[in-house]
C-alpha cells in the first residue's frame, strides 16, 4: 500500500498517524510540505528512521529541492521524481492520501 503525506510533521498529525497505521511492507511517499518529515536531526527523525526498518520511505525530489533540503534527508530515504510517483501508485493496490 502507498501512503502519501503532504504536511510537515510539526503542522498536523498526518505523518504520525501514517506511521502508526502503515503496515510492514508499505511505502510512504512524502510530497509538498511533507518532505520536511525526511529531514535528519528533527524531533521526528527517530520515528521515521524506525519506519525504514520495515517500510520504504520516499521523498519527492522536486519538492525537497524547492525547500532547500534535498541534501539533508535521512539516509535510507529514496528520492523519486514524478515518474517515480506514478510508478509507485501503479505498483501499489491501495493509495492513502493523509490530508
Amino acid at each position, binding site marked *: *500500500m502507498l501512503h502519501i503525506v503532504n504536511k510537515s510533521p510539526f503542522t498536523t498529525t498526518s505523518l504520525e498517524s501514517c506511521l502508526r497505521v502503515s503496515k510492514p511492507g508499505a511505502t510512504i511517499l512524502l510530497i509538498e510540505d511533507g518532505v520536511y518529515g525526511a529531514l535528519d536531526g528533527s524531533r521526528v527523525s527517530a520515528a521515521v528512521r524506525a519506519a525504514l526498518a520495515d517500510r520504504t520511505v520516499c521523498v519527492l525530489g522536486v519538492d525537497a529541492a524547492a525547500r532547500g533540503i534535498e541534501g539533508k534527508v535521512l539516509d535510507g530515504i529514496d528520492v523519486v521524481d514524478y515518474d517515480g510517483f506514478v510508478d509507485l501508485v501503479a505498483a501499489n493496490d491501495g*493509495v*492513502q492520501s493523509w490530508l
Partner: protein
Amino acid sequence: MSEAGATKKFLYINRKAPYGTIYAWESLEVVLIGAAFEQDVSLLFMDDGVYQLIKGMDTKGIGMKNFSATYSALGDYDVNKIYVDKDALAERGLTLEDLQHLVWEDENEDWAEKDSIRLVSRDEIAGLLEEQDVIFNF
C-alpha cells in the same frame, strides 16, 4: 450503479473536525451520493474526525446548518460500517457515550436494530486500509 460483478470496497476517511472547515459536511455529501452506487461502503473516523460524531451539537449561535442528523440517517442509506478510532477518542477525552448512537436495521434479521459504530484499534485500522479498493480523503 455498479457494473456486473464489480463491487468495490470504498472507504471514506474523516480526520477533520466539523464546522471549522467544510470537509466534514462535504465528505458526507459524497457518502450520500455514493450510497446509490451500491458499493461496499465503510466510513472511518480518526484523529480529529472523531469530533464529528459528538452528540448534542447546537449550531444556532454560529449560523451554520447543523448536519448531525445526517449521520443518524446513514443507516437508511445502507451505510452501516462506521469505524471509530478508539485511541483518537481517548486522546481527546471522549468515550463512545459522547458520540451519537448510530444504528441500522438489518433486513436479514427481521429489521433488528444494530449498532453502526465499531470502535477499532490502530492495528485494525491498518488492516481496514489494506482491504480497500478505493479510499477517499477530504
